[in-house]
């Protein structure tokens, strides 16, 4: 059990640290969103999965109800993180584009072209 939990925690920490590095390594808002959203969601999923494994293992040692509750609540927290992170990233990306931040080094930007042809505010 210790080995499984250690491996899960290790994978989670590696991805979380990579997400932190991506915040400094990428050039603009959109690519930083790529790095942080995917890496921190995936890393937190793995560290929380370690807690779920711990709860289930302790539950089968002595059949105490509170370890079962721990696993269940951590699962609910994982689902909340998955949904809220993805939606929040969409909201920030849309707001950044509407407030006039253009993607750096972009080879194509269909959204700005379409907004210009429709006569909407591009700023």
């Amino acid at each position, binding site marked *: 059990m210790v080995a499984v939990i250690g491996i899960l925690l290790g994978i989670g920490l590696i991805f979380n640290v990579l997400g932190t590095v*991506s915040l400094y*390594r990428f050039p603009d808002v*959109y690519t930083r969103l*790529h790095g942080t959203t995917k*890496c921190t969601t*995936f890393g937190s999923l793995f560290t929380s999965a370690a807690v779920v494994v711990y709860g289930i293992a302790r539950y089968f040692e002595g059949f105490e109800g509170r370890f079962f509750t721990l696993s269940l*609540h951590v699962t609910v927290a994982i689902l909340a993180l998955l949904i809220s992170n993805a939606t929040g990233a*969409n909201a920030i990306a849309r707001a950044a584009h509407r407030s006039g931040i253009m993607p750096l080094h972009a080879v194509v930007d269909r959204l700005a072209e379409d907004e210009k042809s429709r006569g909407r505010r591009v700023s």
Partner: protein
Amino acid sequence: MVIFAASALMYLLLVWAGGAIEWIEIVIAVLFGGLISIMAKRWNPNITLRHSWLNPVRLLRFVVYLFGPFLMALIHANLDVAMRVITGKINPGIVRIPTGLASDGALTLLANSITLTPGTLTVDADDESRDLYIHWINVTTETPDASDICGTFPEWARRIAE
């Protein structure tokens, strides 16, 4: 109705400790569910959530989707992004893909799935033509299809939420 069922079931899930549930907890769950659905109706009267979200077949399909293709894409996405963080090789751009999904729930599910899959991030949605604008970190063609970006996800979204 959907809001009532979702909030009452969430309350029961959070107070459930592995054994039987006391009747007073069920009464509290029904009271809170009713209160929250009334508040949601007063806050936004033309809220439209269809009853197909309560269909157990669709929920089962959603669970299968979550643990099958979505988990695979999530793992692939993270290895991809990790390589890009280490090597720093990017070729970004914003492209537009047609989805052909009619309902808002399916479009939301597809947009959230695309955000968590390899190299793509949803930026904006067009309400009239039901297209999605996607920031793609490694642009290979300037006019992609939906299958270039996200594989079979639109098909799954149609089967789960339409």
